[in-house]
């Protein structure tokens, strides 16, 4: 209905001006994250995966929209809940799963598990579970970019909880002061573990931190992939143009417990009510609905779904079959003088 028959396929745009081709590709990314993580959840429940997994389900639009605005050379940094960031930036699904299994073929050679992901070939310079730890590192990568003049943008993904670490403020200040090409993406899912936002701060006003440090900030619907993409695109332009950092507060929600597959592990009644609301705002379903409006068919979605599931199953097989690191290699990699990234 909404698409005109005369337009060549792919030339359509959403009311927000986004090409449908891009939207479809973002949908695929989101779905891939969703399916991957649902499978991980099953494997954790089955006891096949032992490393702590913090699932990103419900937040897929943020990683996807932001990373769609980036180039392969741009840097991203994450935290404990970074499967989504890793996939959205182009990290290898198979080696991430092998990593989660603790295998030597993993993206961190079995030393990192779910909480320590790395893929420098696509600019993922590290995700680690110390809350807020990668925020200053992202600033440093932005500084490197500025010093080299290579126009790379550096993105820090972090949660609302991370803004309570003082280093967040220190980092934003430094990025502001030196006008670094950094994007601070705060995924405000209203919880840090069991603690609701207003149990941790006086006001629901995270983006004000931007004003305090004199940088542009905005608050957006983190379940709207178009919104995330648009905001990130503007931030990327600003960064590449030497006009400094941006703080994006992306309001969203995680569906599962803080860690692991459970739906209610750390859930009080309050969170249950909120969750019901947010389940209705499923970011994946939302894009799917848009694409349907543009004529994408249930059959088409089915095919995509199947492809991704097949890919994930292959990854499970790969992970299962891979070898564990050897005990004799326990002390390897404490230092790696040769492994300098260019």
């Amino acid at each position, binding site marked *: 209905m909404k698409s005109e028959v005369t337009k060549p396929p792919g030339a359509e745009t959403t009311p927000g001006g986004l090409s449908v081709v891009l939207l479809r590709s973002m949908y695929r990314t989101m779905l891939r994250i969703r399916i991957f993580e649902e499978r991980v959840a099953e494997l954790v429940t089955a006891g096949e995966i*032992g490393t702590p997994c913090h699932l990103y389900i419900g937040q897929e639009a943020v990683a996807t929209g932001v990373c769609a605005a980036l180039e392969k050379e741009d840097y991203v940094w994450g935290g404990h809940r970074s499967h989504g960031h890793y996939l959205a930036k182009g990290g290898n699904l198979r080696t991430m799963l092998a990593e989660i299994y*603790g295998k030597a073929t993993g993206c961190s050679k*079995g030393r990192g*598990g779910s*909480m320590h992901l790395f893929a420098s070939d696509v600019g993922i310079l590290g995700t680690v579970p110390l809350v807020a730890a990668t925020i200053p590192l992202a600033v440093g990568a932005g500084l490197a970019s500025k010093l080299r003049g290579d126009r790379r943008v550096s993105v820090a993904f972090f949660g609302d909880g991370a803004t309570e670490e003082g280093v967040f403020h220190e980092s934003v200040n430094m990025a502001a002061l030196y006008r670094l090409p950094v994007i601070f993406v705060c995924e405000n899912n209203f919880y840090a573990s069991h603690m609701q936002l207003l149990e941790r*701060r006086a006001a629901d006003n995270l983006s004000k931190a931007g004003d305090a440090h004199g940088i542009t900030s905005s608050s957006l619907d983190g379940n709207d992939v178009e919104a995330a993409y648009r905001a990130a695109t503007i931030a990327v332009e600003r960064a590449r143009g030497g006009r400094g950092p941006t703080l994006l507060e992306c309001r969203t929600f995680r569906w599962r417990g803080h860690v692991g597959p459970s739906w209610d592990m750390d859930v009080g009644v309050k969170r249950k009510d909120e969750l019901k609301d947010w389940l209705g705002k499923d970011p994946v379903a939302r894009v799917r609905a848009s694409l349907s409006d543009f004529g994408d068919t249930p059959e088409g979605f089915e095919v995509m779904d199947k492809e991704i599931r097949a890919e994930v199953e292959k990854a499970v097989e790969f992970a299962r079959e891979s070898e*564990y690191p050897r*005990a004799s290699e326990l002390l390897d990699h404490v230092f790696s003088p040769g492994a300098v990234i260019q």
Partner: protein
Amino acid sequence: MTTRAITYAEAIREAHAQLLSTDPRVFIIGQGLWSPWYAGTSLKDIDKEFGRDRVIDSPVSENATTGAAIGAAIAGMRPIVFHPRMDFMLLAFDTIINQAANWSYIFGGQVSVPIVIRATINRGGQQGAQHSQAIQAFFMHVPGIKVVMPGTAYDAKGLLIAGIQDGNPVMYIDDRWLYEERGEVPEEIFTVAIGKAALRRKGSDVTIVATSYMAAKSIEAARILSEEHIDAELIDLRSIKPWDQEMVLSSVAKTGRLVIADAAWGTGGVAAEIAATVGSQVFDRLKAPIQRLCLPDAPAPTSAALEGAYYLKASQIVSAVQGLLVSK
């Protein structure tokens, strides 16, 4: 005193509850205090019992949270600040080391900082390098702070209460791997003297000095050794700073042999200090080189396959002792 068998975690909880009940100056602050699982069962429902005014689950701000507890202590309260994972406490090193540990000295002893800083070693489970550390050695190095590491339910309770009553900054380090260990613990409020070790087994062939979790492992090791007719004396250090030099030195003077077991990095660790002190203090009585049994000098890996190789087992204590006895 009436005792009954409870777990290490229950003993910790009981100490907190009795302190909160009996001393209005006591409060708890830190991450996870309103969570059913952060502190394991060691603080179960303590917020419900004592109210969220005195049991404060903090923002993710280790530095300010710890600093606030220190400030409250200076202002006359008796806080317990809780770090559910020792690793996170690195963010609070300035306020612990530069402030709390110095406060009495820099003001000429006119003020003390009556605080317990509770830090939990929470390792294993494929959590990896940033969620596994046992960094007691840092605090052993710093003047102005005491360090205790309970290895039994009894000590878990008695040392926490002693920490609060001490009136100085006390780093209280508990270990999640011990939470389900049971032991006889008095029902009443009681203290275990800071600085006093516990002789867990008398023996004549060799002294094993162990901290916390390794003390538990050493009991296992001593049993295996006794089957081989090796009679080990076993000292559970309990306090790292000050540590019970008297008991350790007189034991080694008797046995002439020492194995030190500490489940932390070896280089520059707690075991090094003990070895150095013993080596010079009972120099003439040593029959064999002192052995240190510690973690390898590497971060904790995640893969279960590597974790198995990384962490210490009772069998390694057995081998270390055997090695010592063979060498002489």
